[in-house]
């Protein structure tokens, strides 16, 4: 018995129909061609990459050393479970902001690159080793490294744009990286996922090791 799907009549499009259909397409394309000019008119709004929201959003994801550490925070939180699963992603952006404020105010923090590389090694190592310290200890560790991650972002802020939008983009991007880590870390509930999460932690630690060598090579 033929299925209902196979009985559906095939719609044939004649050459004339195709020509007719292409006109609306051309019209839509022509209308779209007008849009970029409209978008350019909003540069002053600070939403575009001019030191506004997008600049802040892009900033934390431009360095692999930052990205892996932030993902590791999410992974570790997922492994530790409640309340760490949400306390750590709250703590990291908040304390990172303190680091960013230090950077904005030009307050020096020693061995920044070393600290960032070490954060990836330690946090990735915690995930790989399935380490389960008390929440307070995990919090302190996260807080310590968050200062190192925030400082360079604050020090390298653009001189123009809309500061509050830049800050919003920066914080949201950091939070979303944690969410990505948490999402992947939820695989830990399954045995195969457990191996994958721990392997990712080991990978993050390895990336941290690479950046540590780079930092030592550059004299921190």
């Amino acid at each position: 018995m033929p299925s209902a799907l196979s009985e559906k009549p095939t719609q044939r499009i004649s050459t004339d129909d195709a020509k007719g259909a292409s006109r609306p397409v051309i019209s839509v394309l022509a209308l779209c061609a007008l849009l970029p000019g409209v978008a350019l008119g909003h540069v002053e709004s600070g939403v575009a990459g001019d030191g506004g929201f997008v600049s802040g959003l892009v900033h934390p994801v431009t360095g692999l050393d930052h990205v892996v550490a932030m993902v590791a925070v999410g992974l570790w939180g997922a492994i530790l479970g409640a309340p760490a699963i949400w306390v750590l992603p709250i703590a990291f952006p908040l304390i990172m902001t303190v680091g960013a404020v230090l950077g904005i105010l030009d307050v020096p923090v020693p061995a920044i690159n070393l600290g960032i590389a070490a954060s990836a090694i330690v946090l990735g190592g915690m995930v790989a080793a399935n380490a389960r310290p008390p929440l307070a200890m995990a919090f302190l560790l996260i807080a310590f490294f968050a200062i190192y991650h925030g400082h360079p972002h604050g020090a390298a802020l653009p001189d123009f744009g809309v500061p509050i939008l830049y800050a919003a983009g920066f914080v949201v991007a950091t939070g979303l990286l944690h969410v990505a880590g948490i999402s992947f870390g939820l695989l830990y509930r399954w045995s195969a996922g457990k191996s994958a999460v721990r392997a990712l932690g080991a990978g993050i630690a390895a990336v941290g090791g690479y950046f540590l060598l780079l930092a030592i090579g550059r004299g921190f």
Partner: protein
Amino acid sequence: MTSRAALLMVIGTAAFSPAASAHDEADWLHGMLDGAVLFFTALEFLLPVLLVALLARRHGLRPVIIQAAALGIGLLIALLSVPVPGDPDAVGLIARGYLVALGLLVLFNLRLHSGLVLMLVLATGMLTGLEARNAVIGDAGAGFASAVGFLSSVICFYLPAALIASLYPEGWQRIVMRVVASWIAAIAAMDIAFMIVRSG
């Protein structure tokens, strides 16, 4: 659709933007729309209202409506009052410091008395109004219309946000609210640093 019709559509659309700009600046409706849109396009106005809405916890519909009225009264008092003498950046700094404090209040999930929440809502309205005053009442012709538009947006945003927040005093929804509050506190703290650096 013929190519002539398509061409007319393109020309018509191209002509649309200048037509919108041709509105008189003093047009009441235009001013009201400007005020309404301003609230949603400026995080410094939107975030405090969002945070103070998140303070609502199982207080019910009536307190939320009273709080919305207090927010509106505070806002109108600040918008329609005489300008505050002194450095306008100081108002921004105070508003941002207040935003950090509000964020921490929501983050730590403190059970505040509804009277205290009412006071905080009133203070939020006044601070937001003081900060928004120049942007809303800038044009004398459409100043009041802008204020009405701004106020409408604030109330339309606050009411559903506070009602949703009051529906979820516990659970993962409250955790999401606390995470959002912590992020807003972080944004405000960074903005304070930006302000300090910019003011030299």
